[in-house]
């Protein structure tokens, strides 16, 4: 628990643009957790950072051309105060730099991630 008894929830997202059906769920679950007054972050690793590339959110959605696009779910999560985190090696794995990603994404290292996981009330990974 953080200082004011706020629950801390950490989501880990490992899937990327090549699996659109999996792209939205972490964002909307995180948004719901933030709406429940939790302190919520999503950590993007492995293929995860590809979802945060500029332009990708307009292009893909969990139901393809039907339904909302990824941008909608990302915006909803950010509006609720969800923090988006990436790690440097997984950016490199996907030949990306932080500048290739949408605004508001923060880079953290492996030790910082583990520290967050140890301190969190719950870690949920996809």
């Amino acid at each position: 628990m953080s200082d004011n008894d706020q629950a801390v929830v950490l989501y880990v997202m490992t899937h990327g643009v090549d699996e659109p059906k999996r792209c939205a769920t972490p964002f909307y679950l995180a948004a719901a957790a933030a709406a429940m007054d939790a302190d919520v972050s999503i950590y993007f690793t492995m293929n995860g950072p590809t979802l945060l590339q500029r332009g990708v959110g307009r292009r893909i959605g969990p139901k393809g051309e039907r339904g909302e696009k990824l941008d909608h779910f990302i915006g909803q999560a950010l509006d609720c105060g969800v923090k988006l985190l990436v790690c440097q090696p997984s950016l490199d794995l996907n030949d990306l730099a932080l500048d290739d990603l949408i605004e508001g994404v923060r880079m953290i290292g492996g030790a910082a991630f583990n520290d967050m996981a140890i301190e969190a009330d719950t870690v949920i990974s996809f």
Partner: protein
Amino acid sequence: MTEDAVAPTQTLDVKGKACPLPVIKTAGAIKALRSGDVLEVLATDPGIESDMPAWARQTGNELVSIERIADGFRVLVRKA
């Protein structure tokens, strides 16, 4: 005071909105209210029956009632 006597301060209509929007919109609306105010939420998403008790438990706001109405659900939440 019976539930019927609870007069909502404000109504939030999220009929047609799917999870997680009813919860997100409820959280947003409750922030603008004062302690003791009652928010009425009108929804059609069946998930609301489990989501509202969970949301209230985590946020400390009081779930006054959830009732099924002809076109969905009517929820009353009192701000802590």
